């Protein structure tokens, strides 16, 4: 009798468990899968990571936003319906649209803009340098003239730079009243804004259960059209194969960060239930040589390395074709970009350059990269290519904390790494790659070239667009001939998406500079 009871209880449990099945995804809900470990905060004054930024963009409205028009990022009105620039290009006046409201129903005022921007400067968090260094802003630079007018006094940076920075996350406008109500110990609401929102964008942050899921719901007070997708659920799945299986099973609509092999499978074997969306990535992948280290002091050795590398093998084998050959620091579609790929693998030429530099038998060098599978594979290809011209290289894999510490102190001989673009203007790329005075990539690789630095600075100040574009083209040529960088490629980003999804291509065009969930429907 007892055994029979136990058996019945087990049967009941099994039946109960099997009936609690996952439901289908509703039409007005978008489910995405991603490794959400990168999410640290939803505070627009603090968030600076790529994937989280795309979500923050959909929670906060800015004065202006960037849309992709004919392949180029173009500033368009967001909270500001129009704007003016002073004669000297330094003072910008923005006129706010009437009737725009925050999610809590409060009207968006110029004082909210002033508070948000001053707050970002005072917090001094990761993105603050975009305001302070790139635009030269101080807290006094932002003034609310009246409820609908705000002025911003910059250092005279070109218009595209100013508008691009204002369209970035740091330019997200917060509801001053709500943030102040949640201040603790003078933190300007930073702790609260980590997992709450106070914006005027199309969505609000409803829940962030760390390492489980993030839920956005529609902002019913949004000034624009109400989105077709009312709920966005970002499910944490740290393992790429889990995300891929969940997509194929129909349990998620979008799978982020699938492997290149899975992406190639989706591209090559179309099965109808899921597809692949690709987009030129907002980053660049490079090999860099320390110009103050041994043989790399000689420009001919640096050129030899550039001619030794098999760019096509890296693009086609390591990236399975998910990359675009781009051997300059300007990304495709950016101001001043003109295709220029002068380097193809030429072992004989590379060997001659090495011999001319006094290294006919090569030398030994250490290549450092991080633990990313792609980077390690790239380093192996580069190692093999260098061996063909007599350079013996040893690959050292370092954790990011260790690698950046050494890199920032000019302590690496050679590195395989990447660079994410901070704002979509040529200035955001020329500075790190060519101007050592900003102490970014050119400095880290000890390429202390005054001519390149001067050209970068001149282009950064030039208001005349034709002249500015010409400076960048001249700089690219000089940089390719003399610089310490072998630019491997510009990646193509990809997502696995479900068959029911519409408008994903427009929503993610230009990701993550532009990412608009309101364009997605089912």
């Amino acid at each position, binding site marked *: 009798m007892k055994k029979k009871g136990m058996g019945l209880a087990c049967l009941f449990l099994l039946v109960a468990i099997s009936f609690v099945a996952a439901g289908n995804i509703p039409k007005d809900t978008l489910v995405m899968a991603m490794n959400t470990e990168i999410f640290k905060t939803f505070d627009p004054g603090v968030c600076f990571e790529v994937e989280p930024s795309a979500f923050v963009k959909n929670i906060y409205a800015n004065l202006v936003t960037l849309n992709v028009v004919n392949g180029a990022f173009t500033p368009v009105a967001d909270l500001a319906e129009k704007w003016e620039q002073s004669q000297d290009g330094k003072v910008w006046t923005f006129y706010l649209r009437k009737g725009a409201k925050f999610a809590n129903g409060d009207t968006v005022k110029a004082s909210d803009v002033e508070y948000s921007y001053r707050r970002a400067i005072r917090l001094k968090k990761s993105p603050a340098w975009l305001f302070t260094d790139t635009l030269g802003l101080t807290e006094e630079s932002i003034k609310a003239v009246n409820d609908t007018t705000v002025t911003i006094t910059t250092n005279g940076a070109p218009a595209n730079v100013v508008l691009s920075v204002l369209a970035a996350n740091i330019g997200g406008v917060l509801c001053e009243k709500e943030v102040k109500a949640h201040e603790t110990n003078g933190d300007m609401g930073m702790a609260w804004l980590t997992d709450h929102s106070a914006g005027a964008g199309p969505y609000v942050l409803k829940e962030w259960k760390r*390492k*489980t899921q993030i839920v956005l719901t529609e902002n019913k007070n949004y000034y624009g059209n109400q989105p077709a997708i009312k709920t966005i659920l970002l499910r944490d799945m740290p393992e790429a194969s889990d995300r891929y299986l969940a997509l194929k099973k129909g349990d998620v609509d979008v799978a982020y960060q699938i492997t290149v092999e899975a992406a190639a499978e989706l591209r090559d074997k179309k099965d109808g239930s899921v597809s692949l969306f690709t987009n030129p990535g907002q980053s660049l992948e490079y090999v860099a040589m320390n110009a103050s280290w041994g043989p790399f002091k000689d420009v001919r050795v640096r050129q030899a390395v550039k001619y030794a590398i098999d760019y096509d093998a890296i693009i086609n084998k390591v990236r399975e074709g998910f990359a675009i050959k781009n051997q300059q620091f300007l990304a495709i579609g950016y101001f001043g970009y003109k295709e220029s790929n002068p380097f193809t693998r030429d072992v004989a030429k590379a060997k001659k350059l090495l011999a001319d530099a006094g290294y006919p038998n090569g030398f030994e060098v250490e290549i450092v990269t991080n633990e990313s599978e792609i980077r390690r594979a790239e380093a192996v290809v580069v190692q093999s290519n260098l061996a063909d011209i007599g350079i013996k290289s040893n690959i050292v894999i370092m954790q990011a904390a260790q690698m950046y510490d050494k890199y920032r102190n000019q302590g690496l001989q050679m590195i395989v790494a990447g660079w994410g673009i901070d704002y979509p203007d040529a200035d955001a790329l020329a500075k790190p790659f060519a101007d050592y005075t900003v102490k970014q990539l050119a400095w880290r690789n000890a390429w202390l070239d005054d001519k390149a630095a001067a050209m970068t600075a001149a282009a950064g100040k030039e208001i005349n667009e034709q002249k500015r574009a010409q400076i960048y083209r001249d700089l690219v040529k000089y940089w390719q001939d003399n610089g310490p960088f072998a630019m491997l490629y510009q990646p193509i980003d990809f997502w696995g998406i479900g068959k029911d999804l519409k408008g994903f291509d427009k929503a993610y065009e230009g990701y993550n500079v532009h990412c608009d969930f309101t364009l997605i429907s089912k």
Partner: protein
Amino acid sequence: MELGSFIIKRLSLMVLVIFGVLIIVFIVTRIIPADPVGAILGGNAPPEAVDAMRHQLGLDKPIFAQLVDYLGGIFRGNLGNSLVSSRPVITDILEYLPATIELAISSIIFAVVLGVTLGLLSAVFRNRFIDHFSRVFSILGISLPGFWLGLIMILIFYYKLGWLPSGGQYDMFVFPTRTTGLVLLDAMINGEWNVFFNGIKHLILPTFILGYSSTASIARIMRASMLDVLHQNYIRTARAKGLPKKVVILRHALKNALIPVITIVGLEFGGLLSGAVLTETIFSWPGLGRYIVNSLLTLDYPAISGGTIFIALMYSVVNLAVDILYAAVDPRMRA
């Protein structure tokens, strides 16, 4: 030694062990030639931003001054703020700990029930089919990589058969009420039975994967111990007295054979509580293991120290419990 004095002695040793772990972790993380701020801000951050943050976090102070600050915080019950999440480390740990406890408990229950049963049957039916099966099962459990087996199980039971979910503690459209953080317990407290059954369903695969190697260890120890006991004179005497085999095994042999198993169960449970990063990663389980490993990768000093203290504490408590159990069972252990 009295049991009370024995416990006090072990508790004092535990405090010393945790303090030692704290000092070692603090020094080791600081002498590694790496820069956590650089990793946190990313490769693009200009040097001014890196310096400003280093100053803000007090990482530009001498190591000794940082140690004094840190120890001062610990004595006030403050483990510091995580460099990555900016939240108090204790908040982070308490958020992820329940998921780890839940998985560890279910895994150890699974491992003990299956391991003891297999070990017992294996010893009693030595060199018979069940013994061979148990030994092969144990060897596979110890030698098969958990992450590989986990992926295979997901492929079969989630993707092909659709019987079980691939990961997480519950389905995406389930929103449980949080009381203790333990999903199953909260579901029972709040009468959310759909959440309870949903949670059980999500526990099955990670429990099996995490508990399998422990099952194997327990089964092997249990088998050896049982074989040893079955050859003891008192067992022979009991059999000679005419007691049925079942009674001799379950009433006389099993209790004594379980003593060495207690040690291994304690160690295994301590290990499970310290987090299982691979299982947590494969099954999207929001536990402490992933938190600590990510802290290590970003060199998040306060989180590494806080997490390590918690692991040391859990190991110590479990070992203490095992020792007390031992001492209670066998007074010779108190010497």
